[in-house]
């Protein structure tokens, strides 16, 4: 088993003083046919490592150490020379395939150009190769589609085809499953496994333990740019040694503690949807759907992406009116007390103002008691100094907790949480969700929690509704 790539004391640091080390020296070897997975939460320097290996670090950063490929130190090569290796020795699977594909070029062309210009095949050969790969990836009928017409999974596969036109031996996949639901995720993983053979290997970067487990091979646990432990996948996952690895694995919804005893469904439902029917285009999302939520009840809502989970929530909130059926809200509740948590926390805040200003606005608008803010902040584990920051300067987890706080200020009776944690890494996700459910129960607030991860729903909800789509 020959090493395809040998990385020695690779570290990343800032070029301008004060010199910051963003990734502490790591060393590993990538063997043909044996994938290596970097496991760790987002921002822990994993992606930097990938970029360092590829030589695509953003300006202001530089990599030190050796990356030995075919007996040469790739890192020592000049930038121009390194670029020549891209697509030929390295195939990089982009983080967000959707954005990595040229929005104005047809899928077929984007793959074909690789076969012609990189692999140097003749026009006809390139076309043939393109058709082949599209066929193999089940995209045969997407040849003339534009990227926007593809689903996340399809886009990922198309990008994969475009990146590997030369069967480059070293495949680097950076968060390949980001934002995909479980089924799509499994597709991508199998796709990656197929890429493995005796000549090629895979360097995967993810925070998703399932992906790591399914890929197998070796695992490296990285945090804050420091490699905590590495070893054979099974051993690391089943018997983690480092504290952080333990927590990371524990953070997998399947290992969450069972939910607290369901709150007694009180007679008076707080909100109720009756015989709801909704179409998108000419496709019926759901029909004759009814559900009720009682105070303090946490209801999970699952289903494949695009099955209308968000739509259902928006209907309940009155943002959208259903085609049929109607929504009944318990009397005596101001519309303000029906609130929503968004999937992408930064998108739910006005970016140009400090959180203090924004909360102040809210209190002023509704003459709320400012005194509750500090209390809630401590309850949600938010540090006071965060108030002076702008939304963009907070982490996703912190910001999501702020949106919970913002909702709680209005003493909500119903919260529609639309995948509130899907953009967060496992540990933060667990903490945030735990907080949400606990606080909701304390305030007798009904929550409709959307997630594409059944395990997560079962772990944190009293009962669940499944949309088949």
């Amino acid at each position, binding site marked *: 088993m020959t090493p395809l790539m040998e990385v020695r004391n690779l570290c990343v640091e*800032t070029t*301008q003083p004060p010199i*910051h080390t*963003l990734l502490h020296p790591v060393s590993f070897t990538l063997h043909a046919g044996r994938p290596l997975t970097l496991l760790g939460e*987002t*921002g822990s320097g994993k*992606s*930097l490592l990938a970029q360092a290996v590829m030589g695509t670090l*953003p300006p*202001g*950063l530089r990599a030190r150490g050796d990356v030995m490929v075919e007996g040469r130190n790739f890192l020592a090569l000049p930038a121009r020379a390194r670029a020549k290796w891209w697509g030929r020795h390295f195939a990089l699977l982009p*983080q967000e395939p959707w954005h990595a594909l040229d929005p104005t070029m047809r899928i077929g062309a984007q793959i074909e150009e690789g076969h012609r210009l990189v692999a140097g095949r003749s026009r006809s050969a390139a076309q043939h190769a393109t058709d082949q790969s599209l066929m193999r990836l089940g995209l045969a009928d997407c040849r003339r589609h534009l990227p926007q017409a593809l689903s996340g999974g399809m886009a990922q596969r198309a990008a994969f085809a475009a990146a590997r036109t030369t069967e480059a031996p070293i495949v680097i996949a950076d*968060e390949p499953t980001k934002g995909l639901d479980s089924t799509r995720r499994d597709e991508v993983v199998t796709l990656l496994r197929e890429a493995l053979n005796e000549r090629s290997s895979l360097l995967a970067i993810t925070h998703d333990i399932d992906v790591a487990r399914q890929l197998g091979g070796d695992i490296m646990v990285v945090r804050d740019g420091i490699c905590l432990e590495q070893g054979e996948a099974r051993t690391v996952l089943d018997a983690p040694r480092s504290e952080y690895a333990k927590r990371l694995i524990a953070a997998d919804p399947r290992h969450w503690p069972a939910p607290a005893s369901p709150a007694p469904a009180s007679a008076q439902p707080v909100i109720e949807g009756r015989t709801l029917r909704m179409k998108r285009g000419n496709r019926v999302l759901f029909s004759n759907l009814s559900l009720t939520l009682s105070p303090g009840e946490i209801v999970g809502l699952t289903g494949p992406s695009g099955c209308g989970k968000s739509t259902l929530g928006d209907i309940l*909130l009155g*943002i959208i009116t259903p085609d049929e059926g109607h929504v009944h809200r318990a009397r005596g509740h101001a*519309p*303000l007390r*029906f*609130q*929503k948590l*968004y999937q*992408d926390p*930064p*998108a*739910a*805040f*006005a*970016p*140009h*103002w400090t959180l203090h200003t*924004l909360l102040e*606005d*809210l209190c002023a*608008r*509704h003459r709320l008691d400012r005194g509750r803010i500090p209390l809630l902040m401590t309850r949600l584990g938010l540090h006071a100094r965060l108030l002076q*920051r702008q939304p*963009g*300067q*907070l*982490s*996703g*987890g912190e*910001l999501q907790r702020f949106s919970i706080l*913002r909702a709680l200020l*209005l003493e909500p009776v119903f919260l529609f949480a639309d995948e509130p944690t899907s*953009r967060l890494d496992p540990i933060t996700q667990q903490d945030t969700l735990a907080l949400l459910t606990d606080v909701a129960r304390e305030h007798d607030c009904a929550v409709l929690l959307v997630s594409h991860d059944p395990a997560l729903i079962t772990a944190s909800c009293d009962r669940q509704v499944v949309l088949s789509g």
Partner: protein
Amino acid sequence: MTTTATHHRIPLLRLRVPLPRARMAGALLLALLIAFGWLVPLWHDVSPHHQDLMHTLTPPGAEHLLGTDPLGRSMLGRLTEAVRLSLGLALLSVASAAVPGVVFGVIAGWRPGLVDRSLGLVADVVLALPGLLLVLLLAAIAPGTFWSLYVGIALVLWVEYFRVVRTATRTLISAPQVQCARMLGFGPGYIFRRHLWPELAPEVTTLAAFGASTAVLAVSSLGFVSIGLRPPTAELGLMMTELFPFYQEAPWLLAQPVIMLFLMVLSFQLLAGREPQ
């Protein structure tokens, strides 16, 4: 780089943020111009209208710091007056173009459908009318007044603001942050103040920066076809046309208003911080 959440952790990213230095420079430059226009006359009191036909086109020197114009008037005096007037009028035209432009733009972007369509159509038609015609006609209605020129120019320019603001508003208004603000019980006023304006401001200010120069240049162009002349008032655009015939005999004269305008535009540019996209 990976997600927004990590930004504050990596210090170097602050380098990516546009440096405030440029804006400082812009503000400073503008301050200097204003000082030139308003303060210089205080210590150097020369009438911009006093003529000395025996000493025309004198080069810059001890007696006349910036020389004299074809009628022997002090260029320094005239430039100060011109800067005062042009700054004021440029702002007037920018304001009278930006305010309606932004207002209608926001309305159109906010209310898709009929309102949007009709406003859009009006804008398209105005755009299609030769701007020159509007300006000429307005100039002819109130002959010899500057405001009529600048307002006429504004009649043409407001459409730019409208277009930009409308498209920006459209996308913003459907964004979660606005939907969320609505759910939190905030009204249009608040949404404009906290959500829309911060996004629109850079675009608008940049347009304004260029709009100011466009206005002054338009006036000089009109002066060139002898419209809007009003002796003895000094105005940058008109000074350029007045001094144009002397380009070879006294090039420094023509250069002065041109440089002033350049500095004016530059300062606006730097203040705005961005360029129209």
